[in-house]
């Protein structure tokens, strides 16, 4: 065989082989593709299912969470809203009720008389409406020597704030004449355990009044001001005894036997906030309504007058104050007690705080003159106070009293007192 013959032979046999094997080959690859195709389709189907499931899971999972979260948020919001609402309630209410007042427990030991414990309790009520009306009232409750309890209505007034500077009051109020009665007498304010002679019952200073009162302020410049009070009221009653006026009772009565109203007031000037200078007074009529301990009618009226001056000054730990006041009635010839009378008193007091305001020393001098010598009294009072807080304190006081010999006004005494303004 030549080369061409051999080449042709080889080619032919390769061709034959190829032809013989090709279908088998073709058969093998086509089945694998089909296999793969089937697998791929299956996978694709699986993926689609998974995708669907995932999407469904995703969707269902998120919205449940979201809903739960939203619900939580809403609940929390509501709680927060309610909490803020109640936290702010006190701010937005239209009325406020406040219970306050003061109390004291004393031990009084006179040089000649018997030593004894005494106690009193003065609750005070405030009802404030719309920041425009205040009802203030105070009771004075005291244990008496015979063990009974004396209850008095110290004051009860409706106070209407008319404008920026004026207030109108109606009811029973502490007399705005003088300063001690209206501002200093509560036991936690008074630096001594007792009131200065003449500022108590049947003294030289009126105690209270039933009527109408207008109070206000007139600022002058940045640092000075006037304050004023003017009132109209029923006025006092006179007590006759043994043909004399025994006492002017100026304690606020809800009746007016003499049928003449009393007018009065006080004007104070504060050139600087630490200094107050004031003048006060009242005038009107009064009549004897009780004679020798029994009610008495038909006594003719007579003129009644009050005049007072008071001053106070503060300089760091030093507190100085003083007050003069007199109360008088004219003679009345037709009366069961024809003579008039003048009740007059004044005091000056100095107090100094020590030990970062924890201790306080006090000295006061008072001179009280009554038409009845057995009531008149001169007094030096000394005190040392320990301040638990600014309105709770223990006071020890000593009074050197000079009155008519043998009278209690002449008896020196020690007084220990615990006072608390709450």
């Amino acid at each position, binding site marked *: 065989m030549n080369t061409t013959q051999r080449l042709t032979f080889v080619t032919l046999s390769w061709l034959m082989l190829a032809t013989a094997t090709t279908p088998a080959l073709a058969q093998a690859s086509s089945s694998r593709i089909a296999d793969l195709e089937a697998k791929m389709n299956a996978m694709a189907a699986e993926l689609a299912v998974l995708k669907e499931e995932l999407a469904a899971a995703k969707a269902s999972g998120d919205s449940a969470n979201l809903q739960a979260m939203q619900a939580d948020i809403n609940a929390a919001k509501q709680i927060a809203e309610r909490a803020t609402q109640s936290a*702010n309630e*006190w*701010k*937005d*209410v*239209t009325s*406020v*009720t*406040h219970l*306050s007042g003061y109390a004291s427990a004393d031990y009084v030991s006179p040089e000649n008389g018997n030593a004894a414990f005494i106690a009193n309790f003065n609750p005070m009520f*405030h*009802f*404030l*409406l*719309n*920041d*425009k*009306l*205040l009802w*203030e009232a105070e009771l004075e409750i005291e244990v008496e020597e015979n063990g009974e309890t004396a209850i008095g209505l110290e004051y009860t007034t409706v*106070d*209407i*704030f*008319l*404008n*920026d*500077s004026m*207030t*109108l*009051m*109606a009811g029973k109020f502490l007399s705005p004449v003088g300063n001690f009665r*209206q*501002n200093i007498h*509560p036991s*936690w*304010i008074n630096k001594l355990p007792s009131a200065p002679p003449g500022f108590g019952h049947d003294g030289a200073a009126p105690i209270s009044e039933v009527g*109408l009162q*207008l*109070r206000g*302020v007139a*600022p002058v410049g940045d640092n000075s*001001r006037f*304050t004023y009070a003017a009132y*109209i009221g029923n006025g006092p009653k006179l007590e006759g005894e043994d043909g004399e006026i025994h006492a002017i009772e100026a304690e606020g009565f809800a009746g007016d036997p003499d*049928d*003449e*109203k009393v*007018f009065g007031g006080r004007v*104070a000037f504060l050139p600087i*906030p*630490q200094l107050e200078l004031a003048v006060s007074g009242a005038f009107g*009529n009064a009549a004897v309504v009780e004679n020798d301990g029994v009610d008495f009618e038909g006594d003719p009226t007579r003129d009644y007058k009050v005049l007072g001056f008071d001053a*106070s000054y*503060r300089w760091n730990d030093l507190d100085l104050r003083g007050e003069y006041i007199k109360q008088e009635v004219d003679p009345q010839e037709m009366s069961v007690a024809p003579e008039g009378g003048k009740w007059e008193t004044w005091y000056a007091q100095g107090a100094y705080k020590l030990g970062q*305001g924890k201790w306080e020393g006090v000295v006061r001098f008072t001179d009280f003159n009554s038409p009845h010598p057995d009531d008149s009294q001169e007094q030096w009072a000394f005190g040392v106070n320990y*301040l638990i*807080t*600014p*309105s709770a304190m223990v006071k020890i006081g000593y009074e050197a009293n000079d009155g008519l010999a043998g009278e209690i006004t002449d008896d020196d005494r020690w007084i220990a007192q615990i006072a608390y*303004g709450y």
Partner: protein
Amino acid sequence: MKIKSLSAISGITIVAIFISATMSLQQPATAAETTATAQNDPMQFARGAKAWADTCARCHNMRDARSLRDDQWRAAMAHMRIRAGLTAKETEDILAFLQGSN
């Protein structure tokens, strides 16, 4: 007689003031308003502190701001406004100071 007609005239005048005063009571002025003004008025606290220092030891020892709650101060300050002779504005300033210091 003179005092009697005088008292009748002043009686009527005062009653008239009283009636017109009660009419103004209808519009509430709540502490919320006061708080709102406080936010618009940053100097209120300082003014209140000064007025407090100037006024509140005149008659009695200075009471601690922490001795009362905010609402109690509201009533106590209404009371002290009358006693101490303060304007409404001074009262609001001192109240803001006390409420911010307790």
